[in-house]
C-alpha cells in the first residue's frame, strides 16, 4: 500500500452529488460509516465499485466518490457478478434494500450467495418500500398496515439471515444504522471475508416506517433487546445479567445472578452452521436479537475457481491461436 492510499480520508470518498435522502433517514449514517471505513481498508479508491439496484438505499453509489452503478431493480447481485468476474482485482460492494434484494431480486441474491463470488452485499432493511412511498415489503411483519395493505398485510415475512444460510452463504451478519462502531466493524469484517458477505443492516425509514428498530437502537433498551456476538465468548447480554445456554437444541435465557455462570453458556462459534441457524431464528421477543457475525465459512470462491479454470484451459488447450481456431479440424483447400 503506497502512502498516497494511506492518506485517504472520509472526505475523499464523498462525491460531489447532493445527498437526497429524507432528513433523518438511517441511510445517512450508513453512508458516513462507509466513508469512514474505506480509507482504512487499504483499497485504492479506483478499485472500489458500488453496485446498487433501485430504491432509496440504492442511491448510495451516487454519494461515494468511487466507481459506481445505480442499475435496475433487483439486479445488482448479477451486475456485480459480471463485474467481478471480468476484473477480479476490484473490491465490489452491492447495496440493496429489502425490496430490491429480497422481493424482485431474491433469486439473484441467493444464487450469488451459493456461488460465493467474492464481494460484499449490504442489505438495508427498513421493512418497507421507501422509494415508492410506503408499501409493505417482504420483511414487513404480518398484518402491517400500509398503503397497499389498508386492512393489514397477509404475508409471512422473510427472515433474511435464515434465507441466506439456507442458500449456503459463507458470511452472514447483522448490524444497525445507529451504531457507528458496530457498523464499521462489520463492514471491515465483510471486506476481509473471502467470498460473498451478506450483511443485513437494520435501517430506520423515518418517513414511512419510523421506529421499527427502536427497541434495538434505543440506548436504554438495546442492552436488553440485543445480543452482541463475539467470537469465542459466551452469549451474555443485558449488561452481563443474562446469558443464553442451549438446552438440547433449544436456546434458553438464564439469569447469571441465579446461579448460572458464564461456563454454562453457549459460546459463540461462527463456524458452527447449526448454531448460526439457531441464532438466525432468535426472532420472537423472548430472545434478544443477535448482532454481529452469525456465520462464517471458508469456501472456494467462484471468481477464484474461474481463474483456476482459465489457467487450466491455457495448459490443456494451449496458447490461443486465432487462425487455428478459425481453421478448425477439417479444412480443405480450393486451389
Amino acid at each position: 500500500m503506497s502512502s498516497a492510499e494511506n492518506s485517504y480520508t472520509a472526505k475523499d470518498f464523498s462525491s460531489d452529488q447532493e445527498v437526497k435522502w429524507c432528513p433523518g433517514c438511517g441511510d445517512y449514517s450508513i453512508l458516513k460509516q462507509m466513508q469512514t471505513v474505506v480509507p482504512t481498508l487499504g483499497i485504492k479508491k479506483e478499485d472500489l465499485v458500488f453496485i446498487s439496484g433501485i430504491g432509496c438505499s440504492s442511491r448510495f453509489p451516487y454519494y461515494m466518490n468511487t466507481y459506481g452503478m445505480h442499475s435496475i431493480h433487483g439486479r445488482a447481485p448479477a451486475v456485480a457478478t459480471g463485474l467481478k468476474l471480468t476484473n477480479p482485482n476490484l473490491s465490489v460492494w452491492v447495496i440493496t434494500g429489502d425490496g430490491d434484494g429480497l422481493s424482485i431480486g431474491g433469486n439473484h441474491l441467493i444464487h450469488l450467495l451459493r456461488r460465493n463470488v467474492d464481494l460484499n452485499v449490504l442489505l438495508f432493511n427498513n421493512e418497507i418500500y421507501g422509494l415508492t412511498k410506503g408499501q409493505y415489503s417482504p420483511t414487513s411483519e404480518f398484518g402491517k398496515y400500509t398503503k397497499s395493505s389498508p386492512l393489514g398485510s397477509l404475508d409471512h415475512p422473510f427472515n433474511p439471515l435464515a434465507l441466506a444460510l439456507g442458500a449456503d452463504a459463507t458470511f452472514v451478519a447483522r448490524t444497525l444504522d445507529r451504531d457507528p462502531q458496530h457498523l464499521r466493524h462489520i463492514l471491515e469484517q465483510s471486506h476481509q471475508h473471502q467470498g460473498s458477505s451478506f450483511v443485513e443492516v437494520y435501517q430506520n425509514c423515518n418517513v414511512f416506517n419510523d421506529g421499527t428498530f427502536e427497541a434495538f437502537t434505543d440506548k436504554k433498551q438495546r442492552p436488553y433487546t440485543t445480543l452482541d456476538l463475539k467470537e469465542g465468548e459466551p452469549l451474555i447480554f443485558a449488561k452481563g445479567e443474562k446469558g443464553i445456554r442451549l438446552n438440547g437444541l433449544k436456546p434458553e435465557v438464564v439469569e447469571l445472578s441465579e446461579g448460572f455462570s458464564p461456563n454454562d453458556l453457549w459460546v459463540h462459534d461462527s463456524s458452527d452452521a447449526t448454531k448460526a441457524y439457531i441464532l438466525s431464528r432468535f426472532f420472537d421477543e423472548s430472545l434478544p436479537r443477535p448482532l454481529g457475525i452469525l456465520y462464517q465459512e471458508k469456501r472456494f470462491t467462484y471468481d477464484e475457481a474461474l481463474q483456476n479454470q482459465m489457467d487450466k484451459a491455457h495448459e490443456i488447450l494451449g496458447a490461443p491461436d486465432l487462425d487455428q481456431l478459425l481453421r478448425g479440424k477439417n479444412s480443405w483447400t480450393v486451389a
Partner: protein
Amino acid sequence: MSTVKELQKVTIHFAGDSGDGIQLAGSQFTNTTALAGNDLSTFPDFPAEIRAPIGTVAGVSGFQIHFGSVEIDTPGGRPDVLVAMNAAAYRKNIPNLKSGGVVIANTAGFDKRNLRLAGYDDEENPLDNKPEELQFYEVDITKLNREALKDLKMSPREKDRSRNMFALGFVYFLYSRSLENTLQFFQDKFKSKPEVLEANIRSLKAGYNYGDTIEALQRYRVEKARLPKGEYRNITGNQALALGLIAAAQKAQLDLFYAGYPITPASDILHELARHKNFGVKTFQAEDEIAAITAAIGSAFAGGLAVTATSGPGMALKTEGLGLVLMLELPLVVVNVQRGGPSTGLPTKTEQSDLFQALYGRNGEAPVPVIAASSPADCFNAALEAAKMAIEHMTPVILLSDGYLANGSEPWAFPKSEALPEISAPVMQAADENYLPYARNHAGVRQWALPGTPGLEHRVGGLEKEDRTGNVSYDPDNHQKMVELRAAKVSAVAQNYTPTTLEQGEPEGDVLVVGWGNTKGAIKVAVSQARAAGLAVGQLHLRNLHPLPSDLEIYLKGYRRVLVPELNNGQLVHVLRSQFLVDAQGFDKIKGQPFLAEEILTKIKELMPHE
C-alpha cells in the same frame, strides 16, 4: 457393375426416429461432402422432445443436405433422395420427394408396430403400394447390420445403435464418397470404447459393401464445386457466431465475457464458447436471462467485451436490461437466435418473427442497432460486425440469427486473422482532470472509463442523465436533448455502412425482392431463376435493420413493385412502408420452416405486370 452418373447437385433427406442417430449420420455426410470439395447447405429439423415418441410422425428427426458442383444457396427444396429409417419417416417425407426420386427404406422399420405408430391403417404397408415415379431400395438394414456385428459381444439393442452408419455407408457408396473422414471421426469419438468403435466401423463398411454387392446399381458422382480459391471448412451458424465473437475480442484486445442461460436454439453458442477458455473467454451460465444480461452489463462496465445470447422468450426477459445498457451507453452484443413464437411456441423451429421486438420492444425511446446474419457462415461476419459496432459506438447491438442458420451448415472460406478488421475500443487510458463521463466525440460516442483506472471514478445509472456530466437530471430540456443525442449516436452507425448494392438485377425493374436474414439463399435462387427467364427482377438484402441504410430509397423507388418475403406475418415490410412510404408488399410464411426458392419464384411471377 454399376454405372456412375455425373450430377450437378443433389438433395438428400435423412429421416428416422429421434433415437436413430439421424443428425449424426447427416453431419458425417456433410463433413465428408465438404471435404470432397462440394458446395453445400444443410437443414437439420428435429422435434422439440428429447426423445419424442418412438415410431410416430411427431418423433421424426430429419437432416437435409443439398450439395453440388455448382453454387448452392439453400438446403434444397424437394429432395432427390430420401433415407427413411422407419414408416413414420417415410410417411412424413414422401410427399416432398421429387418425381423420379430415390427412396432408401429400412424395411425393418415397416413392421406392424411401426406402421401402426406411423398412423397407417391395419395391414396397409406403403411399400406394397409404391408410387411408380420413384425408385426404391428396400433394405432390411436392421437385420443386415446385426448380421455384420454378429460376433460382437453386444445386445441386439446395442448393435442397432450403429445401424445409422450402415445406412450412411450405403449412401456413401451411392454417391461415390470416401469413408476416410468418418472412420477418423470414429477413432476420435470412441477412443475409450473399443467395442463401440469396432461396431461403427463394421456397420459403415457393411453398408458401403452392401451397395457394392447388390446388382444393377446406379451410382452418382458430384464433382468438386468451382468455389473461389481459398481454405474452407464446414461450419454451422452457432459455431460461426461463437468464432466471430472470439475473433472480435481478439481484434479489440478485450476479454470476451459471455453470460447466457440455456435455451433452444441458442445454447450451442454457450457450449462452443465454453470450449475456448484459452482465448480468455469467460463463460457464465446465469440463473436466468435477466441475470445473464445484467451480468454482461457488469462486465461491460468493467471493460469486457460482453455478450449474451438467447431466443425469443429469453429476449423478452432481457428488454429491461437492454434499456439500462443503452442508457449507460456501454457496449453489449445481444444475440437472438429466433425460433417459432409467440410464447414457448415452436422451440426447435425457425422463424423471423422477433424483428419487431428487436426494433421496438423496449419502454421509452430506446433505439438500438439491429444486425441480421444471412447464412450459417455469415454468422461469423455478423457477430464480428456487431461487436465492432457495439464497442466503437458504445452501444448495445442486437444480432438476429435464427434456428435455421444456427443449426444449418455450409462451407466457409474462413479468413486469415490478419485480414479481419481492427476494432478500437474507446477506452480511456489515463486520468484526465476534465473527464466528463458523458462527453462525446463527433460520432456522439462517449469514452469508456474502466473501474481500476485512477482518477476516472464516476457513477452511472438508469435515471436520465445530464448531458456531458452524466449526473442525474430531471431537467425537461435536458431530457429531450439526451433522447435526441442517444438517437443521433445510433443513427451515426449508418455512416460506416458500405454502400447498399443489389445482390442481383438492374437499378430499375418490375419487382425488387427485399429480404433480411436467412431468406437470402432462397431469394437468390428464386430471383436468378426469374432473371434467367427474362424477368426484370432484382434482389436487395439487408444486413442492417436499424438504422436502415440511407441509400435504400433509390432502389425501392426504382422498381414498380417491392416484395418482402419474411418468415413472419410482415415485419420488415411494415418498417419499409413507414420509412419510405412505398407500397411494399409482404410475403409471409409462418410454418417454422425456411422458404423454398420455388415459393418465392411463384410469388414473383404473380407480381409481374401482365401485358
